[in-house]
């Protein structure tokens, strides 16, 4: 371990367990959640939803519903046709398939909203929804990942059910040879069940149109700034005309990152009917019609040498995107972080997202978490089969601090990860030898104890490659009253950012925490920010607050020095009071200074009024958090119940702003991890009917299911970000599942290797214990067959992209180009490149000179020039780009008439479809 590592630092407020500013109002019932908002003339919405997973709408009979007293309006897709709406992804990209606000001609999942009922109250609206009669021509639905591969097209206008793809379609011969030749090859294949984010507050919206054409939208969301921007871009309205207010939010966990069909329907309905509308999702709707997460399959192969060192690995991955994902996704982050902390020489993968007739995909805390589950479970299995201690196997392969800087085969540049060092600390806290003795003794009594370990790294506060996640802003001022007000682009759905941002500001400025008020609930004040997304708020928001506070402090000290005729260096702000040191010591209150700043600005430097500052902070491209966890379980061999006896965490989350809040984030993630391993499951029958539609069927952990967690931050090192913070929002949900699975598998090893079939319910564990045959389940995806050379795998593969197309992109079908002759190539073109974050459109020009091609892509006021070759109507060119990573993009295209079709090969990330249309005239 490095001896010279800087210790985590604390200040007067930073690093302290300060009481949360949010709690008094929330404990006394005075929070303001969206359902607590009422406005004059407000009407209530319920949806009539599809009872079938797939079919054509033959007729809609609204007559009985319309006749019900108290019903104000019945709104269908036809009524909304006058509005142009682009249902954008979280990244504000166009969807891969058009997403209707209300079902338009077809229904694509059970719960698909068909009619929006508007009535005097919710009771009447539900009555009316029940009186609507819709006739369907029902079709056989595509429900599972297997269905998607062989069944009918979910969206008839597409050419396949692949919603998104990355990686290589063909197997890499060299990699396959390395896997085959290695001393040990371990293969793990399993499915992850579908999860409902299940925030305790469901989704909800109140949309209030104003006569001037403006809208106030009260929204349960993850960030009012991003949602206001989303509405503005999706509805093509000026952003200043839409004000999104989101005061208290009862949890989100990824579900409420962006508005979706129901919220948009309510906003459009309010505009259409010129009345305020409220929709509060009920739990039945939330468990059936709110977007969900995690339904995945993975086959991971990893080869080791005789000493247990990784040689090569391949992953084949599928993700159920449902019918309308909030951004079609093949989840590149799974591949980035699968071996992101390990010394692995060679890696290749194929990842695909699939459309099905189920409710769509949304984010859920650590959306890529399956990488840690697959890796850590595979490592334990490999260790058992190779006869190596599982901790030793990890230590042989983890990248230590002293190994860095290190670049992974996926191009991840590591400088300060520390899972190995966290594991060192963990093993000081957990006496494995003593446990093994206890385990052996217990087994003799017929009791089954097990211990599980897992490590991970987590990318937090990313500011690269994703345009909506680049920066956060803080606007600070000393009010005329002397108190400090901050408007920050963070947002809390339980995160406590009013507390942590106030701690940072108070600490940095030198004022009492109680004198700082933080506002983050209203898009009409402050600047853009994405809110709670990607574990970014402590790092990005905290950094913005530090820089803004430093600017404000400088302004305060300069002003006081100018007024008092002393040097700036003689002014210190401490506990809200300005202390003048030097020959004539005195004190001045911030209130007195504010009186002058606002009321007598002639006395201020340069005559400028006010005490205000703002800063927009862009954090480093990625700030890594590392951890190692251990847990000890006892599995009751009579009942199959798992009792978690101990859970120890060892984190490197850098400088902590508030340890109680850090630990709260870890604990909350771990509780969700325990739920996903032991009980939670969104399930469907063969017709696509959801079969877990209440909290009696969709099981959530209670106080008895979650043990007390022990936390150790001894391995923490400040990050490179301002303040030295690292994010902790998602880690528990990432590292928790493998830790618990490994402990259960260790406990039950006397009964053989446990098959990973999630959730590990008592019934499944009993089946394993009693050696009963498993219930037949669909087999996870096999690795690609028919190995073929992958010409596009560069020797030094690095992730993707261009200034003009700055994200990894899905692969295209491998179609041969049909030669033709006499095609006109020269001139202006409009291009669309399909990327995992949605299609990216840009302009360009092509010119030929004999068999030489030259061209330019133009996007976002940037130009990327390239040269290549022409053969008949076939074009080839390379484009070297440096942002966000260095890579050579290899393009091939064919021109026929006024269209261009082709693909862009991006090394290890696979191919992206390219389409072009000639600019006429």
């Amino acid at each position: 371990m490095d001896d010279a590592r800087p210790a985590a630092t604390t200040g007067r407020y930073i690093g302290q367990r300060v009481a949360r500013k949010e709690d008094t109002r929330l404990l006394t019932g005075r929070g303001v959640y969206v359902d607590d908002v009422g406005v004059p003339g407000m009407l209530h919405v319920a949806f009539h939803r599809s009872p079938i997973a797939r079919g054509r709408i033959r007729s809609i009979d609204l007559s009985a519903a319309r006749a019900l007293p108290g019903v104000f309006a019945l709104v269908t897709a036809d009524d909304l046709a006058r509005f142009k709406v682009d249902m954008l992804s979280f990244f504000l990209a166009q969807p891969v398939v058009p997403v209707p606000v209300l079902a338009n001609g077809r229904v694509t999942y059970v719960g698909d909203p068909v009619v929006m009922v508007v009535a005097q109250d919710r009771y009447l609206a539900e009555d009316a929804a029940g009186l609507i009669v819709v006739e369907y021509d029902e079709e056989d639905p595509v429900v599972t990942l297997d269905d998607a591969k062989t069944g009918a097209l979910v969206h008839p206008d597409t050419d396949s059910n692949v919603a998104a793809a990355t990686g290589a379609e063909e197997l890499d011969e060299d990699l396959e040879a390395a896997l085959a030749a290695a001393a040990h090859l371990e293969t793990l294949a399993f499915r992850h069940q579908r999860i409902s984010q299940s925030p305790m507050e469901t989704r909800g919206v109140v949309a209030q149109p104003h006569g001037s054409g403006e809208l106030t939208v009260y929204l349960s969301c993850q960030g009012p700034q991003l949602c206001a921007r989303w509405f503005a871009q999706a509805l093509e309205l000026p952003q200043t005309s839409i004000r999104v207010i989101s005061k208290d939010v009862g949890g989100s966990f990824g579900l409420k990152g962006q508005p979706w069909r129901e919220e948009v329907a309510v906003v459009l309905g309010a505009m259409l009917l010129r009345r305020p509308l409220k929709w509060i999702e009920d739990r039945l709707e939330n468990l059936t019609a709110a977007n969900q997460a995690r339904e995945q399959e993975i086959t991971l192969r990893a080869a080791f040498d005789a000493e247990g060192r990784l040689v090569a690995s391949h992953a084949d991955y599928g993700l159920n995107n449902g019918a309308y994902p909030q951004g079609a996704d093949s989840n590149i982050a799974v591949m980035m972080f699968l071996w992101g902390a390990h010394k692995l020489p060679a890696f290749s993968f194929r990842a695909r997202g699939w459309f099905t007739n189920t409710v769509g995909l949304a984010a859920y805390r650590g959306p890529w978490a399956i990488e840690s589950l697959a890796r850590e479970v595979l490592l334990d299995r490999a260790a058992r089969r190779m006869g190596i201690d599982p901790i030793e196997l990890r230590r042989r392969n983890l990248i230590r601090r002293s190994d860095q800087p290190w670049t992974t085969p996926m191009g991840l540049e590591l400088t300060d990860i520390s899972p190995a060092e966290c594991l060192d600390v963990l093993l000081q806290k957990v006496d494995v030898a003593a446990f093994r003795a206890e385990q052996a003794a217990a087994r003799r009594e017929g009791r089954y104890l097990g211990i599980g370990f897992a490590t991970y790294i987590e990318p937090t506060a990313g500011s690269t490659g994703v345009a909506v996640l680049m920066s956060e802003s803080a606007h600070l001022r000393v009010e005329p009253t002397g108190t400090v007000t901050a408007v920050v682009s963070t947002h809390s759905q339980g995160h406590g950012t009013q507390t942590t941002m106030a701690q940072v500001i108070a600490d940095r400025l030198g004022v009492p925490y109680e004198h700082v008020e933080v506002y983050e609930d209203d898009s009409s004040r402050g600047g853009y920010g994405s809110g709670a997304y990607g574990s970014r708020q402590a790092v990005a928001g905290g950094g913005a607050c530090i820089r803004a506070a430093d600017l404000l402090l400088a302004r305060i000290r300069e002003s006081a020095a100018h007024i008092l005729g002393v040097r700036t260096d003689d002014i210190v702000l401490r506990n809200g009071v300005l202390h003048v040191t030097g020959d004539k010591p005195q004190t001045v209150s911030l209130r007195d200074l504010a009186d002058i700043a606002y009321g007598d600005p002639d006395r201020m430097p340069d005559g400028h009024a006010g005490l205000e500052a703002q800063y927009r902070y862009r954090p480093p491209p990625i700030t890594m958090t590392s951890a190692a966890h251990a847990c000890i379980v006892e599995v009751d061999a009579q009942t199959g119940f798992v009792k978690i006896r101990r859970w120890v965490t060892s984190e490197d989350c850098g400088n902590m702003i508030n340890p109680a809040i850090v630990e709260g984030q870890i604990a909350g993630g771990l509780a969700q991890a325990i739920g996903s391993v032991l009980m939670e499951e969104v399930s469907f029958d063969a017709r696509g009917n959801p079969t877990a539609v209440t909290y009696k069927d969709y099981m959530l952990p209670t106080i008895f299911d979650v043990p007390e967690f022990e936390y150790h931050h001894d391995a923490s090192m400040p990050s490179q970000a301002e303040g030295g913070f690292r994010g902790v929002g998602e880690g528990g949900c990432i590292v928790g599942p493998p830790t618990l699975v490994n402990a259960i598998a260790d406990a039950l090893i006397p009964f053989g290797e446990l098959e990973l079939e999630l959730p590990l319910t008592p019934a499944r564990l009993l089946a394993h214990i009693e050696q009963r045959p498993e219930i037949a389940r669909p087999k996870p995806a096999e690795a690609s067959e028919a190995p073929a050379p992958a010409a596009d795998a560069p020797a030094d593969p690095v992730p993707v992209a261009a200034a003009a197309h700055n994200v990894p992109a899905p692969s295209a079908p491998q179609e041969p180009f049909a030669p033709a002759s006499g095609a006109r190539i020269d001139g202006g073109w409009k291009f669309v490149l399909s990327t995992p974050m949605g299609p990216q459109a840009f302009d360009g020009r092509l010119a030929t000179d004999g068999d030489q091609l030259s061209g330019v892509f133009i996007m976002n006021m940037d130009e990327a020039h390239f040269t290549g070759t022409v053969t008949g109507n076939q074009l080839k060119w390379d484009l070297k780009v440096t942002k966000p990573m260095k890579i050579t993009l290899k393009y091939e295209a064919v021109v026929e008439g006024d269209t261009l079709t082709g693909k862009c090969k991006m090394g290890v990330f696979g191919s992206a479809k390219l389409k072009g249309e000639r600019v006429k005239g």
Partner: protein
Amino acid sequence: MSEHAIQLTINGRAHEARVESRLTLSDFLRGDAGCTGVHVGCEHGVCGACTVMVDGAAVRSCLMLAVQANGAAVTTVEGLADDDGTLHPVQQALRDEYGLQCGFCTPGIVMTLASLTGATPATDPDKVMNALSGHICRCTGYQGIRRAARRLAGLAPTQGAPTHG
């Protein structure tokens, strides 16, 4: 739909209202009486967020009709703290122990704990924990809730935590 006249006290104040027979107590308390601290999380009696006290006992107000509260004394989370802002011991314990994050499930947990603790002699800690198992919190992993409950039941906040493998 039949309407019924009801009389009840809410947080010590007399209320009279005419309500539809199907109106839940939770919707009545939120919509008619303005007690928006009553949170509706599942409407089927599992999550416990809507818990209020009716004649001193914790009940799920989503599973009770407003007409059934005729003549009852109802206490919601708004009725616990003193007028001067001093928190109820249950609220103070949850605040001190970081027993909440998003706060949505919190009013129900506060009311269940308030109905069971504060008596002399202290309530059996097992009974308190059993009652809390009827509340779902998706944020905290129950760490601070358990510490607060232990404290309220007269135990040390971390009593019973294992200390070795």
